């Protein structure tokens, strides 16, 4: 495999990123109907996957973790409503939400980071939080559009890195000190 400096790699990545993002923005509305359109969600999963190097070996972990994220997102969204419906519950709406998040975060993180972290691929909590954030952004609506946008965002990151590696090679880790 060829090697290049980090500066060359980043230059190539930047140039490849632009047309791929353009293609994503063109294709997404063609495959997702207007009522499900949440094209912006792709730009949530993209940096989450980019920041760990967008390695193809990790794609399936991110992909399946996203589906588990929908469960937690809607548990976060709907739980405060369940608590508020308890008779005699007279805590403010925002504090009810805060208490629910406080309680649910523990089983959420323990399950995915400890209990099933090594035995399943459902162990990428940043991606699950990305799904939670985007679900909050859509008010829990449009799950199919959201799942497609999140997946396509990850695919853009994956193709960017793979294409850059193919064109200029992998960046060398040992860099001369910059003046």
């Amino acid at each position, binding site marked *: 495999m060829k090697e290049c400096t980090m500066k060359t790699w980043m230059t190539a990545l930047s140039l490849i990123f632009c047309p791929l993002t353009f293609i994503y923005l063109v294709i997404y509305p063609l495959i997702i109907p207007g009522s499900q359109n949440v094209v912006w969600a792709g730009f949530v999963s993209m940096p989450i996957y980019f920041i760990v190097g967008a390695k193809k070996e990790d794609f399936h972990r991110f992909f399946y973790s996203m*589906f588990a994220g929908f469960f937690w997102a809607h548990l976060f969204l709907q739980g405060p409503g369940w608590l508020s419906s308890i008779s005699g519950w007279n805590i403010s709406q925002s504090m009810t939400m805060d208490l629910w998040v406080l309680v649910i975060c523990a089983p959420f993180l323990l399950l995915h980071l400890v209990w099933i972290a090594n035995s399943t*691929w459902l162990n990428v909590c940043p991606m699950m939080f990305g799904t939670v954030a985007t679900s909050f952004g859509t008010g829990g609506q449009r799950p199919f559009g959201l799942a497609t946008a999140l997946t396509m965002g990850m695919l853009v990151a994956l193709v960017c890195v793979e294409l850059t590696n193919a064109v200029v090679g992998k960046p060398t880790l040992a860099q001369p000190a910059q003046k």
Partner: protein
Amino acid sequence: MNRSRSPTEAKEVREMSVGKNTGLWLIPFGVAEMFLVNLYFGIFVAVVGLVVLVFAK
């Protein structure tokens, strides 16, 4: 002839692969999502889980 199994061999028989386990976990997540998110989306996730469970190595 009966041959006693070593602890390692017994473990290999019991444990499922990571892929199959993922599929197995996605099914209850999908069923829960049928009620929490959307019936069709939950069915979709459960079917994805079933496919992963069946086809994962």
